[in-house]
């Protein structure tokens, strides 16, 4: 069988109509391609054939152009929903037909209004037999087909149990109808209504389960819903609205206030505040200017701007997030493996139990044996439900992973979700994790006739020529205050000490205490101030002009506003928090103290971080490592759960167990909270499914009969079975309302 697929590609770097032929040739050269047509105006290509899309993209790239698949994820979701609705309606119809036939019969049985199996009563039952056969075929046919096909493949599934249970009931009843004498008079009970009602209940359960299942994937639907349908592109100087699928790479797009950004790109003109909360969970709008990246699906709040599309279709951050969440929802943690092993052998074991039940009642049961044998065997087959067992883990993972995504926490797989809740120690990198990772001027302490503005202006003027990372912070601070800078002459960097130059003809020294001492500058009270700042984790630098001290400029990597609260949340969860950093011990201890971190391991080379994590693991800790995903990569990989701090577009998404899109440490506590709630939910599901089966099957087999004379009605068993999977799905749905304690 060979099926042809259609792909739409966006082609980049096509500068002339002549390129059309070479792109078409490149596409047609790919084995399996049946047709390829390039549209030069839209910079797209329509390709059909039995071929993988990547082969097409590779061929176009090899020919010297760019290509990406144009794809509408939303269409997929709509199609899926439509298919589910059709199936739901079909199930409802089948339930209704079986219910309309079964309910009156069951009610007649309940009130003792069933005709006897003689005279006109037999005609009544013959009609019932035919109608119930029709119902079994119409409403339950798929169980019989499925059971037979599975049997041929040496497999047994739910269909096997349902088909055997209801089929036996119908067959046995029909045999009694034809040959009443084959069983004693008191055993001449007919089970047509039981077979029909069981089929109705199972269809009803499947329909309700289908509805409930739809809700479990709401998180991903919400993400898919963020994708916009149209975009405003600038073509030939005109702004036109086109479907999102037709936006090409490197095209220029216009976004107005209040509009959603269509695809990923870089602003080329204008600025605005953009609400990225839907992608990153970050509640405050982010200011963006020319050269800044924008993410598709986010909301432009204020200004109008133009941007160039850098990622389209499946390559956008949103599409990748959707794909990652989808993959994580599909993965199974180890907690579900035992249930999988059991469900794999469950049905044949139930078949054996059913035969054993038959033998026990046949050999030791009271009279009328045939009635008891049929009733118990049928009930065992009907009540057993491996589906609840198999569904217990994946359905909760689906909701849990989606819930985490709502909080800006992207979890790579089910195993990471399971492990996150077991973390006993969280190891934090300092720069970029606890702190913002962007040094800034924190204190200006002028002396004598100097004021803050003058002090900063001179410091920034001398640092303009410096390449030191702290220099950038000082120049930025001066820029933000709109200070006028002078040019520095004779700039000289004194390694390890600071810099010197002439600014406006005056001799300026800027650096540490040693630099000042070497030039015999009198510092007065400034060293005491400097010591106080250093103890607070800041880096103080002295400024001297024409041989006299002017003041101190202190620079620090500011601590993120919510780091302290996030660490407190981790403590509340009983987790030890350790800082692991390459920075000097004084700065590290100062930062740790302000945030409330329990232990500091400072002056660690990036290569040694992994060994420190391993040492913690060796001492019995389950370690969660939080870093920026680049320098900390080995430690992230080594940890039981690696958390990468990064924006939605960061490459870190690809490399960690968990990505915190918001960049806040609250994400770690959120992930741990969601993990614990999800694992608890899975355990409830597994416990419920195990208990249901391990109590239900013996009761159905009649274990309570010798003591209490209790036997389960097969209709009750059918109802219980239908409800068991639904209960699991409904319990998983409870996770949708979960809110991690203390989350922001």
């Amino acid at each position: 069988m060979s099926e042809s697929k259609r792909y739409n590609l966006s082609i980049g770097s096509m500068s002339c109509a002549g390129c059309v032929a070479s792109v078409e040739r490149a596409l047609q050269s790919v084995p399996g391609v049946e047709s390829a047509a390039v549209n030069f105006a839209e910079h797209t290509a329509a390709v059909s054939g039995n071929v993988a899309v990547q082969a097409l993209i590779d061929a176009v790239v090899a020919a010297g152009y760019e290509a990406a698949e144009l794809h509408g994820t939303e269409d997929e979701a709509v199609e899926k929903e439509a298919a589910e609705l059709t199936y739901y309606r079909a199930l409802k119809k089948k339930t209704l037909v079986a219910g309309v036939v079964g309910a009156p019969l069951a009610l007649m049985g309940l009130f003792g209004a069933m005709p006897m199996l003689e005279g006109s009563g037999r005609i009544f039952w013959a009609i019932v037999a035919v109608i119930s056969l029709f119902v079994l075929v119409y409403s339950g046919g798929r169980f019989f087909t499925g059971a037979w096909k599975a049997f041929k493949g040496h497999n047994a599934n739910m269909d096997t149990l349902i088909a055997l249970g209801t089929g036996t009931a119908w067959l046995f009843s029909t045999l009694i109808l034809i040959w009443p004498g084959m069983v004693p008079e008191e055993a001449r009970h007919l089970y047509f209504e039981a077979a029909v009602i069981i089929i109705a209940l199972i269809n009803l359960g499947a329909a309700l389960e289908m509805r409930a299942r739809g809700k479990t994937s709401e998180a991903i639907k919400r993400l898919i819903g963020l994708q916009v349908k149209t975009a405003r592109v600038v073509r030939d100087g005109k702004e036109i609205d086109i479907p999102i699928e037709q936006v090409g790479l490197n095209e220029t797009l216009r976004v107005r206030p209040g509009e959603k950004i269509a695809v990923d790109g870089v602003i080329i003109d204008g600025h605005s505040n953009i609400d990225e909360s839907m992608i990153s969970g970050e509640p405050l709008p982010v200011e963006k200017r020319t050269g800044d990246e924008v993410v598709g699906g986010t909301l432009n709040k204020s200004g109008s701007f133009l941007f160039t599309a850098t990622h389209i279709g499946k390559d956008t951050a949103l599409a990748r997030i959707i794909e990652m969440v989808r993959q994580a929802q599909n993965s199974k943690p180890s907690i579900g493996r035992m249930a999988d092993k059991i469900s794999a052998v469950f049905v044949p074991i139930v078949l054996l139990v059913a035969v054993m039940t038959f033998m026990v009642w046949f050999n030791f049961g009271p009279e009328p044996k045939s009635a008891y044998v049929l009733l118990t065997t049928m009930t065992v087959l009907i009540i057993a439900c491996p589906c609840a067992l198999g569904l217990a883990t994946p359905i909760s993972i689906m909701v849990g992973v989606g819930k985490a995504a709502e909080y800006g926490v992207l979890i790579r797989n089910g195993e990471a979700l399971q492990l996150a809740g077991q973390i006993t120690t969280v190891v934090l990198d300092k720069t970029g994790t606890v702190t913002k990772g962007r040094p800034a001027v924190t204190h200006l302490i002028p002396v004598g006739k100097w004021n803050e503005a003058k002090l900063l202006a001179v410091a920034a003027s001398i640092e303009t020529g410096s390449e030191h990372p702290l220099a950038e912070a000082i120049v930025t601070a001066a820029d933000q205050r709109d200070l006028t800078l002078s040019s520095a002459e004779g700039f000289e960097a004194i390694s390890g000490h600071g810099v010197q130059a002439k600014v406006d003809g005056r001799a300026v020294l800027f650096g540490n205490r040693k630099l000042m001492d070497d030039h015999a500058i009198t510092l007065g009270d400034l060293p005491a101030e400097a010591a106080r700042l250093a103890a607070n984790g800041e880096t103080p630098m002295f400024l001297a002009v024409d041989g006299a001290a002017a003041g101190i400029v202190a620079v620090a990597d500011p601590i993120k506003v919510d780091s302290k609260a996030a660490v407190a949340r981790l403590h509340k969860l009983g987790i030890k928090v350790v800082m692991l950093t390459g920075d000097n011990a004084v700065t590290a201890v100062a930062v740790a103290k302000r945030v409330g971190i329990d232990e500091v391991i400072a002056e660690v080379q990036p290569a040694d971080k992994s060994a420190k994590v391993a040492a913690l693991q060796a001492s019995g800790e389950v370690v969660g490592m939080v870093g920026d995903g680049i320098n900390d990569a080995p430690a992230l990989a080594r940890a039981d759960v690696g958390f990468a701090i990064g924006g939605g577009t960061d490459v870190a998404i690809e490399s960690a167990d968990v990505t915190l899109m918001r960049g806040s440490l609250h994400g770690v506590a959120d992930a741990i909270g969601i993990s614990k709630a999800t694992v608890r939910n899975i355990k409830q599901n597994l416990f419920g499914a195990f208990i249901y089966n391990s109590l239900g099957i013996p009761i159905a087999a009649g274990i309570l009969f010798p003591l209490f004379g209790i036997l389960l009605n097969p209709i009750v068993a059918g109802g219980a079975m239908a409800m068991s999977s639904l209960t699991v799905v409904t319990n998983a749905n409870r996770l949708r309302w979960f809110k991690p304690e203390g989350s922001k």
Partner: protein
Amino acid sequence: MMSFIVNLLALALMGFIVWWFWVSRAKVQQVKGSEPIEIIVKDGVYAPSNIEVAQGARVTLNFTRLDPGPCAEKVVFSELGTTLDLPLGERQTLVLEPLTPGEYHFSCQMQMYRGSLIVK
């Protein structure tokens, strides 16, 4: 006598269940080289469900789901840690790089649809 026969039949049935579902094996479809394998997901089964491929060959599995039941919407390769979504009526391709010899099971999430990929 009747009782003896019924018990004997019941025991034989139990023996048959054990033999059929655990001991004997379903028909295996052998695949030559790297040719793609078409698998139809319908009526509670994968057809074919047991596939034998040669060691060192790249395996291309094309799943087409015709079964609207939600159980069929995913196929899980537990040993390979891979799951493929199966939208109704669409053909989904899974390409596996050459695998080490052994048996790799695939199933729906609830282990009701089952199949295996045998690498020899």
